[in-house]
């Protein structure tokens, strides 16, 4: 990710302009077709007996269940619980990562001194902390929070560090030669350079955070969608289980779309967003 992603963005911006609206409509049509094909396969596989329908109910049944779920308050409570844990966890990790990332990233001494520690802590999979979470907090929201924060914190922190390191030395020299103060340099040079990295980090973190929120609920039993999935699985109500899985996927898609929209607004000046305008 990081700088490499930046590279990709620059590349994309230079890509040939699309042949306008017709192309986009065609793409959307194909996309819908893809979804329809997938649903068709899902419907047929259990119907013609490739897979036992007891284990994989046909999609029509699952969709039916999904729509009935949508009007039950219990479903929305679960969604609320999951999203609360997710949003809170993300908020904590983003704030912590920005503060720490700026402090560490701007000091060459700290950058070098913390390297090994970060490299050790970062790859510890947060699910490995499930036992710790269970021991410390039991089946409470704090358990899920611990997992979410641990997993998403590193994503954001690394991106912030990359971003701070990516400040163009020429831009930095320009600011210095025009006698910007330290704070003004952070505000006018470091922060804008870091922003695209930060948003990438947030996008990654929000995906990972959702995974961990659901996992935590699923395995630990903290309240939320994951717990509902576990409950339905234990009760053998597979259609509802699949409907809930569908819901988690859709939530993931919505989060992704939302973060990208924020990115587009915040980075109107950035190559990834400027699109065809660039020459």
């Amino acid at each position, binding site marked *: 990710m990081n700088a490499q992603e930046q590279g990709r963005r620059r590349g994309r911006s230079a890509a040939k302009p699309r042949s306008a609206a017709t192309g986009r409509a065609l793409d959307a049509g194909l996309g819908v077709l893809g979804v329809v094909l997938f649903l068709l396969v899902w419907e047929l596989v259990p119907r013609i007996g490739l897979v036992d329908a007891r284990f994989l109910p046909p999609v029509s049944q699952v969709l039916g269940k999904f729509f009935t779920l949508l009007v039950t308050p219990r479903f929305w409570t679960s969604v609320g619980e999951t999203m609360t844990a997710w949003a809170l966890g993300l908020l904590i990790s983003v704030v912590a990562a920005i503060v720490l990332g700026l402090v560490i990233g701007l000091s060459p001494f700290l950058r070098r001194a913390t390297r090994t520690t970060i490299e050790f802590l970062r790859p510890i999979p947060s699910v490995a902390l499930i036992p710790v979470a269970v021991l410390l907090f039991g089946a409470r929201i704090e358990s899920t929070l611990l997992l979410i924060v641990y997993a998403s914190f590193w994503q954001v922190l690394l991106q912030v560090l990359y971003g701070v390191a990516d400040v163009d030395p020429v831009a930095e020299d320009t600011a210095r030669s025009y006698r910007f103060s330290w704070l003004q340099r952070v505000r006018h040079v470091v922060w804008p350079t870091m922003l695209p990295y930060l948003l990438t980090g947030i996008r990654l973190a929000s995906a990972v955070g959702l995974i961990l929120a659901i996992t935590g609920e699923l395995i630990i039993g903290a309240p939320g969608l994951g717990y509902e999935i576990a409950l339905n699985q234990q009760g*053998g109500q597979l259609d509802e289980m699949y409907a809930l899985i569908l819901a988690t996927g859709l939530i993931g898609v919505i989060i992704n779309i939302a973060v990208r929209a924020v990115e587009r607004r915040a980075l109107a000046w950035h190559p990834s967003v400027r699109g065809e305008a660039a020459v």
Partner: protein
Amino acid sequence: SGAADSGGSTGTAGATGGAGGGTTDITVGVLPVPDTAAMYLGVDQGFFKDEGLNVTLQPTTGGAAAVPGVVSGEYDFAFGNYLSGMVAVDQGLPLQYVTNATAATKTDGFQAVVVPKDSDIKSPKDLTGKRVSVNNLSNINDTTIRGVVDADGGDSSKIEFVEVAFPDAQAAILNKQVDAGTVNPWVKSMESDFRVITYNFTDFTPDLDIAGFFTNTKTVSENPDLVKKFQTAMNKSLEFAQANPDKVRAIILTYTKLTKETVDELDLPVFRTEVNKDSLKTLADAAVKYGTIKKVPDWSTFLW
């Protein structure tokens, strides 16, 4: 050990000294399975209110999550099978069981080890050298199954136990991923696909107590009053549950996702107030023998 420290003062949210007519808020960790029906029913029937206890039921996914909850003081009481409790106590955690919750049925299986109809496994000893699924390894199921197999003349050290959650067990057996599997609840309608090899609880030792409610030893020593109230209410609930199977079935439907058909078929566990100490001793001996725990618990502090 320092475990008690981390809990701080007992988590009883309300005033512990609710001596008079005031109510005390307590939180109880439960599993949303039929075994805890008596607890749900008791709350529903107001037996805990009668004792001045305002109960919040906190569902968890397993006893393993409940133990830390009790140790840390988050739960005042929690549901857990006796062997889980022995394991925790074996590691030095300060737990004490205060009431019974479920016992194995005398007659038929609430829980069973089953094989596909056409399997050549005929009796428990045939499980030697096979793959058998249990819901949790190093726990009550594999311990009792080993006991049953050895008693039948097989060699339990040659069984390969695999963890499969109860709901997945049927599929695992049918797809031949395991040769035999532990299912719970075992219901008659499964007879079309499966054959029972052993009802591993009843076959292990008759009248085995399976699970109870436990609390922190600190609560017991500092707040015996509260424990007493809980025990009274719980015993009332158990007796009521045992006497009213229909009400039990009805309440199960409210907190599990089991279908009505399944629940109607369900062979309900026994809800019994007095603890069958002998059965627990047998269980503990087997657990030591098979290495699940290192030593038999001190009964005077394990049971209240």
